[in-house]
């Protein structure tokens, strides 16, 4: 769906992208994560045909963005970080305008507008002015607008900015539903818990380069990991804990602090349970045990610890 190879983009005083590469397959919901100024918005703008790249290649749905931008636009929906909306238009007029802007012909045009109104939950407010909607409703309207022409790919740049918790939950549900309908979604956000909840893959970016690519829990659940990392917080003598760990085949201490150990175990969650039983049998008081491995926040901290100010 998206093929980006060694993409570079420079501004007058800074470098936006510096050899970034990414391949998105069908049915992926990918989160783009990185600190401010990492190049996320630049990347999304290039994909949305708003910015030309300096070098590298970008193909969306098989079309080169620099050669055939119209075909690219026809296949994607783009929601910018601060998306404006025509306040002085009625909701119906707003959707009609964009249906015409995407060259939808009757009867598809009317059907698309009706579908967008239903999707936004605004079917009974068609004649209301946009300015009377709350931020959450406006965001829903904007999302419905970018889906009017039934794109195959959705580019979302910080879509949850400024939304209240309920609106964020609704947005997450809507994105999950759209993904289930077969839409490929690339979403940039700083709200890591949202991304962790819905994304099938997380792509890290810093200083315009790929940093690390990691599978989130949703995908990792289906795959058998060769090793598992466990966090262990305990009370009691350290020697007893060390003896229990060295007695467990293949266990390795990765990090040691006062009352805390990060341990790598061979195998899967069953092996983690067996390890926990061994530690408990040794008479050690367990305060906290987590065998899920580091969450997205922890992975972010590790990936960008040196990049963030």
């Amino acid at each position: 769906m998206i093929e980006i190879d060694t993409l570079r983009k420079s501004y007058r005083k800074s470098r936006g992208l510096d050899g970034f590469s990414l391949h998105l397959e069908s049915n992926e919901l990918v989160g783009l994560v990185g600190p401010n100024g990492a190049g996320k918005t630049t990347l999304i703008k290039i994909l949305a045909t708003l910015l030309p790249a300096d070098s590298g290649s970008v193909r969306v749905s098989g079309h080169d963005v620099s050669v055939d931008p119209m075909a690219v636009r026809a296949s994607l929906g783009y929601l910018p970080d601060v998306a404006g909306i025509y306040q002085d238009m009625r909701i119906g007029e707003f959707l009609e305008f964009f249906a015409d802007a995407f060259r939808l012909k009757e009867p598809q045009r009317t059907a698309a507008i009706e579908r967008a109104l239903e999707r936004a939950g605004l079917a009974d407010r068609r004649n209301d002015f946009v300015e009377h909607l709350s931020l959450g409703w406006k965001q829903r309207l904007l999302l419905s607008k970018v889906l009017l022409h039934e794109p195959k790919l959705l580019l979302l740049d910080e879509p949850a900015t400024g939304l209240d918790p309920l609106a964020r939950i609704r947005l997450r549900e809507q994105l999950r539903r759209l993904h289930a309908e077969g839409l490929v979604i690339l979403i940039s956000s700083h709200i890591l818990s949202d991304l962790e909840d819905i994304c099938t893959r997380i792509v890290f970016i810093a200083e315009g380069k790929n940093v690390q690519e990691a599978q989130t829990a949703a995908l990792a659940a289906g795959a058998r990991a060769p090793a598992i990392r466990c966090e262990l917080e305990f009370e009691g003598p350290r020697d007893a804990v060390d003896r229990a760990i060295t007695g467990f085949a293949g266990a390795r201490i990765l990090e040691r602090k006062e009352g805390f150990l990060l341990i790598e175990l061979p195998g899967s969650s069953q092996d983690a349970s067996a390890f926990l039983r061994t530690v408990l049998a040794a008479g050690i008081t367990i305060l906290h045990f987590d065998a899920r491995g580091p969450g997205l926040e922890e992975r972010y901290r590790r990936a960008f610890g040196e990049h963030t100010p």
Partner: protein
Amino acid sequence: MRRYVTNPMIIKELRQRLRERRSWLLPTLYLIVLSGIVVCVYYFSTDTGRRLRGAEVQGADIGQAIFLAVVFAQIIVLLLMGPVFSSGAITIEREQRTLAGLLTSLLTAPQVWWGKFVAALLYLLLLLASAIPLLALPFAFGGVEPLDLVKALGSIILTLACICAIGLWCSATFRRSVHATASCYAIVLVLTIVTAITFGMLYAHWQQSHPGASGPPAHIQAPLFLNPLYPLLTLIDDNDFRFFVYPVSSWLMFAGVGCLAAALAMRRLQRSGEQL
């Protein structure tokens, strides 16, 4: 071509413009001002005529005076309004963060430009058309030919189209409406005042070297070709203005400047992704 005629931008722009309070307030004020000018001109031309020639006041003189007054008042007022409607057209999309939505739709940059241009020009033409009854009034007095009306309206429309194109270029170039509007007014000022001053200086210099010559040649008049009032001078049936006879050159200049501004605005619009 059909896409440019059935451009959704035109409908959107006109719908938004006509919802503004100024959309009905401005034509009202505009017509009040023009009507006031007509009354004043009628009063002064009959009064002055009476004083100069006794009771005999020629209807043709009154007709021509009213016609010229309305035509010149219209071009001056519309020159002041042109930048208001055109130079904020693209910057407002940028300021309201709606430009990205347009540029990622299937509307091309020329289509976006055309929609903005037609909407701005149509509103000015609405003002122009609303004053047609006042322009028709001189025909009741005589002294004005239908061709004069066609020439006057054609010249005003061409000038306004050029000003709208310049306004849109300013709008595509600057990030903020206030800067774009100020720049457009500066350009209008250059076209109206600076060209006239330049012509005055060239003419004075030329007169010194050509004493007794009948009138300034084309190259001395050249700065005036870009003056919006110049083509309208040919409408004046007066000895002092009989040398200003190159309206076609002026129209060609305006058409050229308008096309150049349009091309630059579209190019700028295509590359405005970095400003979003």
